[in-house]
């Protein structure tokens, strides 16, 4: 699995790289700020990203949002911020994991494996939805009076599936 890491502190970045390589991951890119992270996610096509939150130029959560918008991939945040507001912001940006600094080596690989597996599941479900369009089916059936009746099949408000005759 190719991983992009984004971390402005050199020591932590080196540490992360060593941990990932020890666990059989390939570090395909190292970014020192959010802007670099977005660019490297584009140019090196990682399978997953591990992003710090507080970085110069662009913070990690905004970087996560931009990276995900360009090409969906599993993202795990790695940060010293433990407040609910930051966690909620990261969750809203679509991240699949959130590790707190000082992080424990034992948490890094599991977070990436779980994130990658669940993200693959989400993409597969989205693909099914995309190929089985449309969400609502309209069709015409002939009526006894000789007119065609437009019929619509869709989910009713109570969640049940219903077929309605749409009055022309």
């Amino acid at each position, binding site marked *: 699995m190719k991983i992009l890491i984004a971390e402005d502190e050199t020591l932590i970045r080196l540490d992360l790289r060593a941990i990932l390589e020890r*666990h*059989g991951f390939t570090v395909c890119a190292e970014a020192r700020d959010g802007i670099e992270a977005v660019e490297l996610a584009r140019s090196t096509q990682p399978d997953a990203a591990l992003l710090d939150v507080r970085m110069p130029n662009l913070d990690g959560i905004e970087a996560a949002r931009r990276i995900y918008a360009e090409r969906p991939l599993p993202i795990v945040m790695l940060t010293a911020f*433990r407040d609910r507001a930051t*966690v*909620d912001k*990261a*969750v*809203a940006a*679509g*991240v*699949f*994991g*959130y*590790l*707190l600094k000082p992080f*424990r080596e*034992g*948490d890094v*690989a*599991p*977070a990436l*494996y*779980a994130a*990658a*597996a*669940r993200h693959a*599941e*989400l993409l597969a*479900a*989205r693909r*099914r*939805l995309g190929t*089985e*369009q449309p*969400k*609502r*089916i309209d*069709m015409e*059936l*002939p*009526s*006894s*009076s*000789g007119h065609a*009746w437009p*019929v619509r*099949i*869709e*989910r009713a408000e109570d969640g*049940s*599936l*219903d*077929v309605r*005759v749409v009055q022309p």
Partner: protein
Amino acid sequence: MRVLIAEDETVIRLDLKGMLEGAGLEVCAEARDGVEAVELADSAEPDLAVLDVKMPRLDGIEAARRILDERPMPIVIVSAFTEESLVRRAAEAGVYGYLAKPFREEDLLPAIATARARFDQLSAVREQVDSLAEALAARKAIERAKGLLMQNQRLTEQDAFARLRRASQTSGRPMRVIAEAIIQTLG
């Protein structure tokens, strides 16, 4: 949010419970092994589960797999063991998070928040996929019932459809239900 916890060591279980309750979550069930976890995941109707791996009778990863089969929910694994084979098994079973023990409260809460959010996101997409499949099935049933009526009652396509629609209107039931009843009777 209602949480099921599964942990065989009492002290750690109490500790975990305290952590979750301190964060405003409700611990709705406590399991001491994997079999209990699977049972409670069904009967206690939790919104999320936190499972230990090494437990008597059934390990947490196998318990996770069974829970996800029967009543899907976001699951976070907590374990002193983080070797790759275990972690991969857990990821394949469908867990959303995997934390090394001992962990801190601040490790657990973000794991729960991301698990919950991503699970809800996947559920929403899957629901759309299901409703689409249902819609396609409804269309098939109506077409089939119409064909059966034409064949059996020697009706024109128009009359067959009119009859389906009338039955739906007078009975106040969706056309799919009428169509399925016709298929059962005539098919």
